[in-house]
């Protein structure tokens, strides 16, 4: 929010938005507003003599052309598709049902009331369609019309399909490509944003919301994607920031490019704002189709089950040797995940951010599951601020949408240090704890190696209502590693090595936890897939309710 405040101070939100937009497309916006296609003029003159039917056809035709051919060409030249091309590619062929094609903006200032400045449908394409046969609502901002800027009408169109999506119970996918607010409309535009924000919040946890940033998205506009469940970006052509490089320079005197400030790389590796980045528009849209298939349509639906060709009884022999013999040696948790799930098909969320935790969607015997796993390959798989927040948000999404959670645990503890403590690891770590504890979906946990200290509790432990908790023979459930433990228990004593060996013998194995029933069974790794598939069948009818509350109070 700090950056947002800065924008307000430096001349109000509108100014902030305008400045940021200018930096995106210098001079072009003005050109859009002033330009008028000769075709438009020509047709405009003949309106008087046209029948209603002709006028309808004409309007539809004009709507399909968006801002006109030369703007479409300019969009293509930038390596971007038009709003309509995107919708067409995203949805199954011939399933798009458009709404509000005839809506036009209502601004009458600055010459906007002239016919040449009216575009049927305004700067957004909205409607519903199907992805692999499943219902979805879509809006796609049209950069060729006033730079995709958000007018009151534009916002109203988006709100309409969001309302419908909520009524029906179907996801909303937003394709963002907008310069910002329609400055000519002033507060009307701001109100539009707020209307969308409110709906984003109302829809949160009711229907899945996905944002795909395919161009600029700056100023207040960024809060819509931020409120949705998943934000995806297109590399090199999309940007997300509160204030653009120019404002940053004038306020903090920092020199930064758009790409560095809010490009796909920044948001998928540094800020954690976006969940995935794709090479180009085509790749992004095809991937969103694939991603959509993992999700239920709403919180009233169970996790979808797709036809599965991978045998649920398949023994995965490679898992028997995956955990190295030396406890200090790293291995790749992704190898375990991919070997376990259907067809090695794992849609990883935030693969390049907080890589010490792995989260994403997969299927077990066809049914969508959410996977959470500590990644021993990165920072030993410890929990820190970023990984806790990344994990927590993912767990809450799964819980909200009835997606079972499979947790693979190999965690040496929370990351120590002043940076973490000052950054509030206590508060942020609590989020992951909170998310796992609160979740009522089926929860299956597999301890592959270390489960140390408080981090053991956090990682979907039995104590947080884990439904099925397994340990591999290599599991070590303990308060801490042998060395540290021995230094405390036998402080100052000689023969630490012998004490360490004793500690290892006693605690560095799955028995203490198994004896107490904190893990349900010690299983051969190769049977993991089989076990999970069978458990999920049984847990499909799981019913668990948390006490009634207005809403919970997660430590934000």
């Amino acid at each position, binding site marked *: 929010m700090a950056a947002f405040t800065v924008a307000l101070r430096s001349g109000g939100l509108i100014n902030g938005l305008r400045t940021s937009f200018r930096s995106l497309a210098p001079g072009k916006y003005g050109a859009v507003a002033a330009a008028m296609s000769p075709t438009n003029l020509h047709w405009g003159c003949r309106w008087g003599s046209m029948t209603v039917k002709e006028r309808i056809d004409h309007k539809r035709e004009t709507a399909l052309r968006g801002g006109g051919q030369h703007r479409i060409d300019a969009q*293509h030249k930038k*390596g971007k598709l038009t709003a309509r091309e995107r919708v067409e590619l995203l949805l199954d062929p011939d399933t798009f049902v458009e709404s509000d094609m005839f809506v036009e903006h209502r601004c009458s200032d600055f010459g906007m009331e002239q016919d040449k400045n009216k575009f049927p449908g305004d700067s957004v394409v909205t409607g519903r369609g199907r992805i692999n046969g*499943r219902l979805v609502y879509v809006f796609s901002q049209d950069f060729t019309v006033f730079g995709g800027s958000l007018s009151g009408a534009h916002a109203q169109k988006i709100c309409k399909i969001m309302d419908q999506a909520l009524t029906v119970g179907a996801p909303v996918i937003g394709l963002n490509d907008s310069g910002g607010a329609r400055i000519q409309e002033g507060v009307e535009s701001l109100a539009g944003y707020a209307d969308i924000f409110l709906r984003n919040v109302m829809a949160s946890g009711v229907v899945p919301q996905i944002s795909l940033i395919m161009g600029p998205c700056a100023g207040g506009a960024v809060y819509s994607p931020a409120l949705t469940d998943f934000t995806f970006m297109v590399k090199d052509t999309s940007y997300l920031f509160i204030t653009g490089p120019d404002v940053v320079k004038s306020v903090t005197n920092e020199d930064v490019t758009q790409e560095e400030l809010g490009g796909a790389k920044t948001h998928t590796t540094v800020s954690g704002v976006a969940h995935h980045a794709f090479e*180009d528009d*085509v790749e992004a849209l*095809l991937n969103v189709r694939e991603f959509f298939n993992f999700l239920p349509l709403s919180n009233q*639906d169970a996790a979808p*089950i797709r*036809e599965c060709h991978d045998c649920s009884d398949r023994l995965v022999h490679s898992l028997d040797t995956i955990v190295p013999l030396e406890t200090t040696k790293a291995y790749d948790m992704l190898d375990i995940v991919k070997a376990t799930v259907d067809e090695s098909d794992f849609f990883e969320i935030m693969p390049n951010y907080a890589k010490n935790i792995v989260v994403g969607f997969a299927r077990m015997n066809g049914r969508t599951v959410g996977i959470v796993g500590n990644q021993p390959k990165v920072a030993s798989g410890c929990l820190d601020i970023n990984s806790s927040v990344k994990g927590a948000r993912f767990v809450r999404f799964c819980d909200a949408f009835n997606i079972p959670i499979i947790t693979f645990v190999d965690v040496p503890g929370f990351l120590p240090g002043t940076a973490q403590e000052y950054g509030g690891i206590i508060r942020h770590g609590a989020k992951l704890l909170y998310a796992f504890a609160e979740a009522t979906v089926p929860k299956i946990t597999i301890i592959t190696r270390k489960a140390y200290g408080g981090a053991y509790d956090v990682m979907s432990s039995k104590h947080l209502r884990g439904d099925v908790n397994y340990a591999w023979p290599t599991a070590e459930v303990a308060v801490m590693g042998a060395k540290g433990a021995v230094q405390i228990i036998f402080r100052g004593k000689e023969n630490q090595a012998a004490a360490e060996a004793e500690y290892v013998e006693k605690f560095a194995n799955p028995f203490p936890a198994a004896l107490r029933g904190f893990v349900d069974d010690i299983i051969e790794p190769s049977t993991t897939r089989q076990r999970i598939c069978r458990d999920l069948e049984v847990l499909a009818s799981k019913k668990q309710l948390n006490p009634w509350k207005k809403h919970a109070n997660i430590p934000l």
Partner: protein
Amino acid sequence: MAAHRLSPSLNRLLIAGKYASLRTSCCAAHGYSQYSTACSPDEKTFDKILIANRGEIACRVMKTCQKMGIQTVAVHSDVDASAVHVKMADEAVCVGPAPTSKSYLNMDAIMEAVRATGAQAVHPGYGFLSENKEFAKRLAAEGVAFIGPDTHAIQAMGDKIESKLIAKAATVNTIPGYDGVVKTAEEAVKISRDIGYPVMIKASAGGGGKGMRIAWNDEETREGFRFSSQEAASSFGDDRLLIEKFIDNPRHIEIQVLADKHGNALWLNERECSIQRRNQKVVEEAPSTFLDPATRRAMGEQAVLLARAVQYSSAGTVEFLVDSNKNFFFLEMNTRLQVEHPITECITGLDLVEQMIRVAKGYQLQHKQEDIPINGWAIESRVYAEDPYKSFGLPSIGRLSRYQEPLSLSNVRVDSGIQEGSDISIYYDPMISKLVTYGATRAEALSRMEDALDSYVIRGVTHNISLLREIITHPRFISGDISTNFLPEVYPDGFKGHRLQPDRRRELLAAAAALHVAAQLRSQRVLGNLRVASAPVHCDHWELCVELEDGRHPVQVTKSGSGFTVEVDGEKVEVEGEWNLASPLLPLTINDTHRVLQCLSREASGRLVLQYLGTAFKVRVLSGLAAQLNSFMPEKIPEDTSSLLRSPMPGAVVAVSVKPGDTVSEGQEICVIEAMKMQNSLTAARQAKVKSVHCKPGETVGEGDLLVELE
């Protein structure tokens, strides 16, 4: 160590069951119908044998031991603690850390293991200590049998010069040559005539092909003498020349011998091992297409003469170079079991390991020379974890995330020492397995090899299946026209994978398009009762665009029964299959031909990697609309790599020859990487100044790791 962390009881509990199942599957599945000598139960040999080796050969020896009722002891390095050979053995002893010098070559530790386990004999396999006379001596000193020849035979054949002299004395053909220095052109002509053309004139101080000439007649000899002496003088400052017989287009053919301690010796026919890269064999077969019975007999008899000359006992191999006129010359004798012994077992029906064990115990050979048959034909492909696109094979490492041997096919034998989940590490030989096929005829064995290579699933490491399949289907190989120069002659610019002919290209495009459609259709199949009904697109015709290499092909797919009719470049291709999207193998019937493809990866973006005819092809399948829109997408420029020197393989940095600020010229050595006992010199691609160095000697680097950056 697992043993430390697990209580013993748990270890037993979990692993006992696994051992048992593994062992049965190994024995049963490999179906050793190819060698079936019945071991007589009253012929007692040893109670317990220690196998001083690892990997496939250790497993191979243990299989015979198990068949003979002999207890087995495995030795292993610490990284091999859960290797297959360790699981197969009745007992296992750790003999040191990963580097071979500290484990598998550590005689003290292995001797200690022999004592501790009470093994009565040691089988050394090949490599490691198999031809180490010191090891054989130490075993003998402790009364432990060495399953191999006696020390003096190892010694005599271990020395190149001595072995040649012994061979000469035993009237074995050796490469004729004049050992002295040649002084004049006329003397050179005289010597050449004595040796017989063609001859090779080479500088005494020579190397690297400099000062070397091949002469086919007197005139060329005179000329060659002149040029060579000039070149030798300018290159080495020494114009002394030698002349020896030039073996034109040599083949590498070896004779398997088997001898006992009672003076009996047999030759078990030949193995053709001409297909080599960097002096390492790649594909072997038995018998050779090249030998006629008379030559075979002559070579066999000479091999036996040599074996007798050194009182050889056990199995051994006499290697010959054979020229295009079927003249053969002794090269060397290997006093051990060879890697490629299975093909001899296939055609003779003998179990060589069993024979070695019997001989070591002092039994006489059971067979006479006339009992040794040539039954059918056997081919062996050495499946390596290496990248065949880099000098016919640079080692690669990794974890076998998926591994499935083609054992469901008949007459296929796979000798391997790894399984799904195994690591191919930088410490040991990167061989994955020896894939052997057997048939009544060569054509049958070759056709089985094609099927076996196509059905062999190896994921997680780069492998050389593509090269193997290209070799065995190459017209020159099929016609038997091969020599040790086969690979460089056939692929002068390096191996680049299968080159698709138009009809094969169409098949691949059709298969890719059909697979894409099958996956699309499956994506629509959502099960269960849905609150909002699904509305799948009912469609039986798809317009697609398939990109392969540089080409874009519009493709029309129409559903027809369980398959698809695919129209590619104006031709119709029928593709049928079960379309199991989880199986690593994709068996298809394409235009009535059965083909096994493998889908190596499939992405939402339409990108597929299909292994077809052994080679992995990158394909992209897009709908017509997506393809049209894709033309607006910008080409993403890949990172300029000419200034970045990356490690071409995983290994250890041996030396770094530059430091930041140095100017290097094109081709200058920058650093040396050692991997799998091979030193590779990495050189500068262009003249440049060194910007930064990112590695130091002794460091381990992975494939693709940045070593040195140039400006």
